[in-house]
C-alpha cells in the first residue's frame, strides 16, 4: 500500500504518542503495585539480640581477608575491578545473581 509522507508522519506521531501514554500508564501501575503491596507486607521491626563482647583480642588481618575476597571475585567473575568492600546487607542481595549474569553474559567462551 502506498500513501503520502504527510499521512505517514501523522500515523508515526499518533503511534508514538499512544505508546508514550501506555508506557506512562505502565509506570503508574508499577508505582501503585509497589505502594499497595508495601502496605500489605509491613512486618514488626526485628529487635537485634544483645551483643556479647569477647574478652579475647580479635585475630583479624584485613589485608589477608581483602586478598581472599579479591581472589574469590576474580575466580567467579573474571577480571573486574573491585570498587569497595562493605559489610553485607540483606537488602541488595536479591539483585546479586542477575548482576553477575549481566556482567558475564558476553563471555560465550567461558
Amino acid at each position, binding site marked *: 500500500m502506498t500513501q503520502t509522507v504527510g499521512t505517514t508522519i501523522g500515523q508515526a506521531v499518533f503511534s*508514538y504518542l499512544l505508546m508514550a501514554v501506555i*508506557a*506512562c500508564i505502565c*509506570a503508574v*501501575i508499577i*508505582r501503585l*503495585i509497589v505502594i499497595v503491596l508495601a502496605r500489605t507486607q509491613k512486618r514488626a521491626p526485628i529487635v537485634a539480640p544483645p551483643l556479647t563482647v569477647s574478652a579475647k583480642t580479635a585475630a583479624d588481618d584485613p589485608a589477608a581477608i581483602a586478598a581472599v575476597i579479591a581472589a574469590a571475585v576474580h575466580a567467579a567473575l573474571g577480571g573486574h575491578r573491585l570498587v569497595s568492600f562493605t559489610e553485607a546487607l540483606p537488602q541488595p542481595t536479591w539483585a546479586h545473581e542477575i548482576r553477575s549474569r549481566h*556482567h558475564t*553474559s558476553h563471555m560465550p567462551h567461558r
Partner: protein
Amino acid sequence: MPGIHILDLFQGIATLAASEPFIFTGRIFLMMLGLLLIYLGQRGVLEALLMIPMGLGMATVNAAVLFLRAGKMGTLFLDPLASTTDDVVTQLQINWLQPIYTFAFSNGLIACLVFLGIGTLLDVGYVMQRPFRSMFLAICGEIGTLVAFPLGVAMGLPVNEAAATATIGGADGPMVLFASLILAPEIFVPITVVGYLYLGLTYGGYPYLIKLLVPKKLRGIAMPPDTTRPISAGEKMVFAVVACVLLSLLFPVAAPLFLALFLGVIVRESGLNYFYDLFSNQILYGATFFLGLVLGVLCEANTILNPTVLILLVIGIIALIFSAIGGLIGGYILYFVSGGKYNPVIGIAAVSCVPTTAKVAQKVVSAANNNAIILPHALGASISGVITSATFAAVLISLLRATGG
C-alpha cells in the same frame, strides 16, 4: 571420463559460472561477508553467539548452490519461497533446515522462545524501583522508530515495509523479526538480517556516539546511592501478570510476545528452578543458535538481493542512531531536572537491546570515572525499553491493520 564435463562434478562452481553477473557478484560478496561476520564475532566486535552461526550459514549457503530439477538452481538447506501445502511438504522431506524454518521461524515461534529466555534474565525490580524515570528514558529511546517510519515511505517503501523496518529503532531483534513477519512477510529476511547486523554493531559503535555527545565531565557523574527499598519476588510477579494481561488486552496481535516475555519474568521470580535453568540456558541459547543459523542460510543471493536492501540499510542505521540520540536527550533532560545529579549516559541504555546497551553505558561511564556505578539505573531503562518497543511495534501493527496497510 568422456561425456562428463568437469563442472558437472563441481556444481557450486558450475552454478556460479551459470549465474547472471549480479547474482555472481552477490554470491561472492555474501560469502566474503559471512567470513567477515565470523571474524568480527570471534574478535568480539559483533555478538559472537549470533554472528558465528549466521556468518558460516551465509558463506556456506552461497557456496552450496546446485542444479535441481529442470535446471533450476537451489540449495539443500531450505526454500523460503515454498508457499503451497504440497511445496512445503515436499521441501520438508528434502531440505534439512526446512523443519526449523517452517515450524519455528516463519510463525514467530523462535522469536517468542528468545523473548521467553530474555524474560528469565530480566530483573524487573530495576524498573519497579524507579518506574517513571525508566519509562521516560524508554519513551525517548523510541525516537528512531518515529523518524524511520515516514523516512522509509519517503524513500519509496510501501507503508507496511517502512513500518516493519522502522522497528529496528526499537533495537530488539526478536521484535524486529516478529513485526516484519506480520507486516512485511515478503521482505522479512533482509529486514531481520539488517536489524541483527546493526544490533551487533551497537556494542562497538554506541560508545563513540556517547563520547561524541556527552562530555567526559558529565560521563563521570556518580549516581547517588539508592534509597529505594528492594522489590520482592511477589511484587515483580504481580507486575508481570498485570502488565501481560493489560498489554495483551490492548494489542492481541502482539500477545505472543507479551506472554513470552512476562512468562519468562514469572518463571524467574516464581522459584521454579528447573524451568528457570531450562529457559535461561538451553532454550535461550538453542533458539539464538538456530535463529543465527537460519538467518544466515536465508541470505542466499537469489533470495536476499533486491534493490530494497540498500534502503533497509539506510533506514536501519538512521533508526538506531536517532534512538540513541533520543535516549541521550532523555538523559540530559533528567540531568537538568535533577540539578546535575543524573548521569545522562544512562539514556543510551533505554535503546532496549537488553542488556547490551546497559553494559555499554556502564563501560563508558567507568572509563570516565572508575567509582561511578550506574548499572542498576541503566538496566531499569533497558528493561523499560523492551516494554516500550514491544508496545510501539504492537501499536504500529494494529494501526496499519486498522487502516488497511
